[in-house]
């Protein structure tokens, strides 16, 4: 795919900037969709009365279909007009998003998410060509496209959590529709202005950059853990509201956006950036596996490590995967396929691990609760009352972290014993948080292992300094 800007009128700078901005927004929205519903999953689960594994498909369906159709969508862009492909993708994505917003059942929601991914794939790969064509400099265009993707992926869960808290999970989809539609006039205006280089397509498209794409896939699998597992730990394990969880996980996107300005001056090269990024992501995930308490502040430093790693490695690896390779859209499609295949692999590996660990955490949690209740300085009759109530709560929420507050609300405690009952309630909540935090440890460590695996392809990369 080549760019022929000779026949287009010299766009005013503001018009070009506006085009790049709206196309980047489209890319960010589509790639943000990979994780945007993460914080909404508990609410979707309640709304549809579904099981955790079923609801996980709301995430998996989008990422799986995006991984599968990214390369075919890129071929469509290469063979036709990327502007038309992008415009079609925007319309398809907006239509599917509308269905998501009004989905009457989990099945419809999952199907619409799959359709979203098909439209989204066209938006992403088509926008790569359009952004590069509009910017006029290949490396700068690719970097903007990659940065939009990183920003979308990192901000997705945060925005989704805030919208779920403020309105409902359906608001996540409602908000996306006008934003992505902004890209439609920009795409239509580019029609016929990006001319395909037919010879390259038909004869010898460059082979995909295996090492960079493999590293991207492994890091994406690890990053899934960072966002998906962390928000689940905060909301389900530590009983934080989606809004608080969303604000807490902003540390990742903030650090990711800061990584460029902080480290770009070093000009260490693609391999160094990818290696450092993998180490930072693996270290941050290990930090999340070794949390010393259930206070949000303990998650911040590991999140900053993950964010810095994300900012350093993903756009560097994406640029490496695209550098000097044509057709560009096809190689952009490969990077998207690799990243989202990584997300799916991450979800498929990690979801059973942490759900099994959550089930296994039940026994130590029950024993800790029994110990505290038995040893509490309360009358035996109060303890028996409480044990009965706690038993009901534990049975009602089997397989999930129970909310013990109703057990204490229903408890009739003589006034002199109220401080002891309050201390017991705090103690029991602490034990539940300890059990939940412990239950996520293995999944975080496995995710850290995936990030460390990315070191192998990263170390094998040919190093080229950034200009």
């Amino acid at each position, binding site marked *: 795919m080549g760019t022929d800007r000779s026949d287009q009128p010299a766009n005013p700078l503001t018009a070009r900037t506006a085009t790049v901005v709206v196309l980047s927004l489209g890319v960010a929205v589509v790639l943000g969709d990979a994780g945007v519903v993460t914080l909404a999953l508990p609410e979707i689960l309640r709304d549809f009365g579904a099981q955790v594994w079923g609801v996980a498909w709301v995430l998996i369906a989008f990422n799986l279909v995006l991984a599968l159709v990214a390369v075919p969508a890129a071929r469509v862009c290469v063979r036709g007009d990327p502007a038309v492909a992008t415009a079609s993708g925007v319309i398809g994505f907006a239509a599917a998003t509308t269905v998501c917003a009004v989905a009457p059942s989990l099945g419809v929601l999952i199907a619409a998410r799959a359709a979203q991914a098909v439209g989204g794939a066209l938006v992403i790969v088509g926008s790569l060509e359009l952004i590069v064509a509009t910017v006029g400099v290949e490396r700068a265009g690719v970097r903007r496209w990659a940065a939009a993707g990183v920003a979308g992926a990192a901000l997705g869960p945060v925005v989704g959590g805030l919208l779920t808290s403020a309105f409902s999970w359906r608001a996540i989809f409602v908000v996306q529709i006008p934003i992505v539609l902004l890209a439609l006039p920009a795409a239509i205006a580019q029609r016929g202005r990006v001319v395909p280089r037919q010879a390259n397509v038909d004869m010898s498209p460059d082979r995909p950059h295996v090492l960079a794409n493999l590293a991207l896939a492994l890091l994406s699998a690890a990053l899934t853990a960072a966002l998906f597992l962390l928000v689940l730990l905060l909301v389900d394990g530590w009983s934080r509201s989606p809004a608080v969880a969303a604000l807490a996980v902003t540390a990742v996107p903030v650090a990711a956006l800061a990584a460029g300005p902080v*480290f770009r001056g*070093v*000009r*260490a*090269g693609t*391999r*160094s*950036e990818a*290696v*450092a*990024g993998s*180490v*930072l992501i*693996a*270290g*941050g995930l*290990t*930090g999340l596996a*070794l*949390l*010393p*308490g*259930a206070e949000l502040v*303990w998650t911040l*430093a*590991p999140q900053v*490590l993950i964010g*810095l*790693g994300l900012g*350093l490695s993903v756009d560097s690896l994406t640029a490496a995967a695209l550098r000097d390779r044509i057709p560009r859209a096809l190689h952009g499609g490969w990077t998207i396929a690799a990243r989202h295949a990584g997300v799916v692999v991450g979800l498929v590996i990690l979801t059973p691990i942490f759900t099994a660990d959550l089930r296994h*955490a039940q026994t*130590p*949690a*029950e*024993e*800790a609760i*029994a*110990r*505290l209740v*038995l040893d509490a300085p309360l*009358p*035996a*009759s*109060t303890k*028996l*009352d409480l*044990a*009965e109530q706690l*038993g009901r709560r534990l049975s009602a929420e089997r397989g999930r972290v129970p909310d013990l507050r109703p057990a204490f609300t229903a408890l009739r405690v003589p006034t002199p014993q109220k401080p002891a009952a309050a201390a017991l309630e705090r103690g029991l909540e602490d*034990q539940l948080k*300890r*059990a939940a*935090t*412990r239950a996520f440890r293995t999944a975080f460590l496995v995710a850290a292992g995936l990030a460390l695996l990315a070191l192998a392809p990263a170390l094998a990369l040919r*190093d080229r300094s950034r200009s």
Partner: protein
Amino acid sequence: MRRLALPLIAVVLVTAVLGVQIAAGGGHYVPLRPANPCEPRPVPPIAPQLEPLAEQIVLLGLDSAACRLGISRERLVLALAQTRTLDPHQSAALKAGLLDAVDRLERQGRLPKVSQLLPQALDQANLPGIVKTIIEAIPDSVIDNLLPTAPLLHQTVNELDINRLLHQLNDPSQLNSVLQSAILQAALRQILDRLRP
């Protein structure tokens, strides 16, 4: 050198963060583990009333029974709460545990005298007023000589229907009355045994 700078910075940052977390107890933030039931736990002061005494005997008894069964006290309690029935082996272990608890409190001089427990027991007992008045008129020393606490509690435990007791766990007030009635019956039997020629 420039190529090594970023990986080195990354390693330093990761080491610093993990170092702080491990120093603050990272890796040890886990639920409280059940105590070893075979290690005797300290006994707090016991108010000379039936409920605190019964509670302490049950807590110590659970430890001893769990030790005999080779499980934790907490696991035993959770199993009892779930099944509400015991096989003969568990029932025997529980009774033996309760008897161990009485013996331990007796050895430590922590058992209150029966005369100290009597007023509360009489208040709650379903006895005719005249009988209560007569019992109250008996001097404490006579009662304590006639009914030493440890043998009385031994007899209570031996005659206790553990499975029936477990079924009362849903209703703490009923549980108290079952316990009191068991103690009163044991007391009556002890008195009759003493009075027999």
